[in-house]
């Protein structure tokens, strides 16, 4: 499902003395099936953009096209239920939204709220719990008896149980340990591929943006200032610095090494594996030419 932000402006508390402009003329195209990372410094407007993706916020200027629906400034939007089902958002620290008596009920809540029969909701919950690595006995436990990492998984399962076409992730791994972080990011990637999802990742981690995204949008002072492919975005260090961002560690290490050795590696290394391969290749080549 395509999402298109056209000249979107947004002001909090519009027409009051507290009015605060958060977005200015934002244009972002999220093509169906893409994996888009939205990056930007704290306060750059990332979270405000995110809330437009399922019409939790409605633009005060411009319009947002979500699939075949259009949410336009000044036009009363009706029946947003479908949009909210099709676009699932995993908010930061989603475990704070758990509330049901058992894990199973919590995961089933969303789909049943949308009229999915109990049997089907249950089937989805059981399947997703397993996919997210929750032990089967956890299903009958209270979500509040689980560890923080497990609670996060329950909350994510609750969003996935709605079977959204677009999955929006706001710092989904903040506070998780490294293994949990890797597992969850890999799982999102796997779902993205298997189910042909459209994925939007809002993140501070340049490493995750470099590894997973096929397009990146940079937010700065409420504007979308650049968008493009990771390899172009991360090759332009000056531009990143202008927006108070840094390249991923792999790129930084590559640059350090290139400066020290006086060589240039092939392309830019967006993952650790690619960096190691690039270095090994350059060193081997160095040998041959001697």
């Amino acid at each position, binding site marked *: 499902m395509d999402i298109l932000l056209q000249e979107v402006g947004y002001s909090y508390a519009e027409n009051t003395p507290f009015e605060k402009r958060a977005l200015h003329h934002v244009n972002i195209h999220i093509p169906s099936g893409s994996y888009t990372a939205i990056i930007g410094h704290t306060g750059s407007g990332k979270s405000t953009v995110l809330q437009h993706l399922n019409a939790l916020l409605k633009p005060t200027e411009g319009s947002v096209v979500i699939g075949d629906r259009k949410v336009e400034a000044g036009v009363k939007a009706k029946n947003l239920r479908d949009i909210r089902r099709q676009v699932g958002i995993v908010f930061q620290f989603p475990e704070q939204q758990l509330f049901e008596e058992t894990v199973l009920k919590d995961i089933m809540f969303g789909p049943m709220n949308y009229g999915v029969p109990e049997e089907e909701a249950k089937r989805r919950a059981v399947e997703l719990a397993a996919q997210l690595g929750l032990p089967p006995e956890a299903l009958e436990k209270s979500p509040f008896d689980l560890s*923080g990492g*497990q609670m996060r998984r329950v909350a994510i399962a609750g969003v996935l149980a709605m079977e959204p076409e677009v999955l929006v992730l706001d710092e989904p791994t903040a506070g998780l340990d490294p*293994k949990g972080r890797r597992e969850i990011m890999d799982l999102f990637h796997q779902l993205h591929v298997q189910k042909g999802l459209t994925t939007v990742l809002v993140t501070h981690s340049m490493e995750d943006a470099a590894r997973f995204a096929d397009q990146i949008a940079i937010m700065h002072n409420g504007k979308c200032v650049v968008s493009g492919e990771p390899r172009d975005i991360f090759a332009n260090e000056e531009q990143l610095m202008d927006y108070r961002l840094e390249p991923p560690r792999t790129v930084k290490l590559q640059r350090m090494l290139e400066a020290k050795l006086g060589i240039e590696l092939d392309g830019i290394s967006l993952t650790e594996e690619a960096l190691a*391969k690039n270095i*090994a290749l350059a060193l081997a080549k160095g040998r041959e030419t*001697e």
Partner: protein
Amino acid sequence: MDLNIMSFENVTFTYMPEDETVRPAVEGLSFSIKQGEWIALVGHNGSGKSTIAKLMNGLLFPQSGTVTAMDQKMSEESLWKIRSQMGMVFQNPDNQFVGATVQDDVAFALENNGVPHAEMVQRVHESLRQVKMEEYLNHEPHHLSGGQKQRVAIAGALALRPRLLILDEATSMLDPQGRMEVIETIRELREATGLTVISITHDLEEAALADRILVMNAGHKQVEGTPEDVFFAGNKLTELGLDLPFAMRISKLLTEAGVQLSGEHMSEDRLVEDLWTFYSKK
């Protein structure tokens, strides 16, 4: 003799003492921390780190074993005195502000403790200077960046002149720049004041800067040692849900790709140095 700032002796704590099938959150844990040390406490989610933090400041009491802080046994009676000597900074920068301005916020605990006004002003300025936030005295906390917020939270803790600063995942919600700011602040503080620091963290790069690392696994202390000792124990860490520092991961990948390194390196500088030696030798 060095003062024991914090020690645990054979400490066991379970959230459900009535249910024997539930494993204790912390079991048979012993360690001790000397004045002036920087200790990193690492472990996977659910390894017992947060429980340890709550045992350290008397929010929880162990079912067995002893917690001793500032040379006093932790008890209902001693806990207020002990708490007055420790500062804590938590994970979420937005959840720890009470003041309308930065200086009000830093002054909050001082007011609670009845510190006279003149001294309060002086301490607020001093602690904000220590975290390089003195220019922001009258700013509203919610307009600051995450890193700045956490530095103000640290200043709030410092204003009480604690002997021990506990950071509970204090950098985990920050962007990379904010994280660097906070880590740099702690480094400088330690150099200038010799403050004892316990940082509970997932960030192995942060842990690598500590004097000593305690690795927790399922309620037990798995490994304890200098960062070198702990990281060179290698694959174990990965099995425990943790990770190696970036430079070590790349070192490993390079070795697998047939590049001969003199060893695995904890810092990017050393790795680059080693690759340079290798490259210029041929």
